């Protein structure tokens, strides 16, 4: 029972992450129709916004490290610490939440440049060409990040105050053994909030309808006086921001490295397709569904009956759903069915 509860919690937070990544992807892929293999790279760039901020905040003075005797070594003392003492330390401690603030403008800029500079020429090109060019872009971004930050994961911890775990079990009157990291709970809530905000934006304004229409028939929407290029740029920027935020928030969960995006890439495509192309609720639902199923499939009890199921559950479920429901969970007719 406790185990089930814990795996469920775990699935929720994993699902939140999938949902958030898939949300950004479904804006680009399900709405604009671009098979964006650079989506993972956007996630990665988001993470490295946090890393960079951390780097900037902990910019340090080099002090001769006397304890190293074999050769001349230097240790680094952050300027913030030198100047502001504990306040400076606290600032460094809060790197990740602070990074959210800088990530929004940065990712908006990245999305803008990427769409205007590259993606825009590819709306009419084939999926295959979109894959090639965005994959190329993803590699370039990755390699640049690697050249600058190195290949190893860079720890970017959450603020001290939320680094422990919450006694979730006690809240629900269950066993005290059920604990869950604060940051993961925050991640889940954050994902929820972002998803809600994006939905509100697209549902409560006509923006969503215009974009859908533009996706279905770009030319005609242009002919009725709508500057669809601009709308698409906005969508792309929005997607980049959502994905970047997902990346920032994920850094305390998983220390980012240059390759982190690729690891999410395939999975996020699966999530989007299982959810149904172009359906935002679908992407979110599929994200949670797959997250929870994967979490349960890793339970020892289940693995002992079906060995290896934890390895393939996501793909297996994807296959079954696509066969039973041709357009995924909540896909609309006519979107990317060619």
């Amino acid at each position, binding site marked *: 029972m406790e185990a089930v509860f814990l795996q469920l919690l775990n699935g929720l937070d994993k699902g939140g992450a999938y949902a958030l990544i898939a949300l950004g992807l479904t804006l680009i892929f399900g709405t604009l129709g671009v*098979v964006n293999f650079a989506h993972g790279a956007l996630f990665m760039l988001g993470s490295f916004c946090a890393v960079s901020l951390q780097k900037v905040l902990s910019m340090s003075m080099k002090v001769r490290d006397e304890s190293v005797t074999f050769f001349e070594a230097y240790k680094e003392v952050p300027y913030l610490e030198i100047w502001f003492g504990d306040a400076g330390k606290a600032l460094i401690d809060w790197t990740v939440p602070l990074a959210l603030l800088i990530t929004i403008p940065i990712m908006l800029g990245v999305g803008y440049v990427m769409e205007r500079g*590259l993606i825009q*020429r590819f709306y009419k*090109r*084939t*999926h*295959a*060409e979109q*894959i*090639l*060019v965005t*994959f*190329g*872009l*993803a*590699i*370039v971004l*990755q*390699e*640049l990040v690697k*050249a600058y930050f190195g290949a190893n994961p860079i720890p970017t911890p959450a603020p001290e105050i939320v680094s422990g775990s919450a006694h979730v079990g006690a809240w629900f009157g269950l066993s005290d053994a059920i604990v869950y990291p604060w940051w993961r709970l925050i991640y889940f809530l954050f994902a929820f909030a972002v998803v809600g905000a994006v939905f509100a934006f697209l549902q409560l304004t006509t923006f969503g309808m215009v974009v859908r229409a533009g996706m279905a028939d770009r030319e005609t929407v242009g002919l009725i006086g709508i500057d669809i290029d601009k709308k698409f740029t906005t969508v792309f920027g929005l997607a980049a921001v959502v994905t970047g935020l997902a990346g920032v928030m994920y850094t305390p969960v998983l220390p980012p490295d240059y390759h982190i995006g*690729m690891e999410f890439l*395939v999975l996020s*495509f*699966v999530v989007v*397709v299982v959810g149904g*192309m172009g359906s935002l609720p679908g992407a979110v639902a599929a994200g949670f569904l797959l997250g929870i199923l994967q979490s349960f499939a890793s339970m020892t009890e289940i693995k002992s009956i079906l*060995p*290896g199921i934890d*390895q*393939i559950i996501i*793909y*297996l479920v*994807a*296959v079954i759903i*696509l*066969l039973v429901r*041709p357009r*995924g969970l909540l896909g609309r007719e006519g979107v*990317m*069915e*060619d």
Partner: protein
Amino acid sequence: MNMKDNILVLIFGAVILTMPLWAGIVGAGYPDLLQKFAIFGLFAIGFNILFGFTGYLSFGHAAFLGIGSYTAMWSFKLLTMNAIPAVLFATAVSGLFALAIGFVALRRSGIYFSILTLAFAQMCYNMAYSVLTPITNGETGLTLTATDPRILDAATTEGLPSTELFGMGLSGYNGFYFCAIILIIGFYISVRLYRSSFGLMLLAVKSNQNRMKYTGLNTKPYLLSAFVISGMYAGLAGALMVVIDPLAGAERMQWTASGEVVLMTILGGVGTLLGPFIGAIVIKYFENIFSAFNDAVLNQVFGFLPDFIQGIWVSFASLFVGKGWHLTLGVLFMLIVIFLPGGAMEGFRRIAAKFKKEKEAHSAGGAE
């Protein structure tokens, strides 16, 4: 199949078979890379039969590559070190898998098909890595051991077994020629297929499935045949990989490997006969040659420059070679697809057209 095609195949064959003689000029004249050219070329040519002809983009063809490798490996381990049975079994078994996977995946089209194939391949990969370890030896990969049963020729070999073709060893250049001949046959078959009425049907599928159905043609078996054929090419390529280097690892089934063949095909030119092969060569060449550059080599190259400029150049260039060769590849992908949609073949066509124009202009000028 007309005269022009026969000539194409002949020239292709001649170019491939003489490769060891001239590839050295660009630093590619060593067996391992040449073998790769042949194997991945074959893989891409087969992939093109599905993707190029029918427009169905499979993102899981690496699974067949892996299945071919494992099958061939088990043929070596259980039967004989002769490459022929290994190659035949691998082709057949991967064909069977392709039949099963294709049967299911082809119930959907477009991006849904891509995701289904991807899902199947990832399942194969993940299982090869974990629960199927007894068959695949997991991450370490399946290797030959001196204690393999090899019921047909265990008695005749001593020490560590190595692959052979009726007594001829298949490492080094022999291995290359073996792969090259299979590649040429594979290319010939793909040309015949392209020119056949079956090939025309595949192009029709790509163009308008609805019209096809209402013309009384059942698209599904056409697609399935194409899927199985290209799966068999992949299995064959996988078998050749272990013929020249008897180790079957799970990584070659990962989605990135499936993605690689997609990239090769697009880079060279989707739907063209030669393009996929050219794409394969370009990518493998970059992978092998550029990743081997290091600072020492760069310093040599830029040695003629004054020291401080040399330093700048070397550090800039080192971004793109050695461990940064991926960057070069990424830039190449982008440049090609932005400026040369249609891939390398499109590039050749444009160059040819330009020459022709110039020639015409010349002759026109001459007439005046």
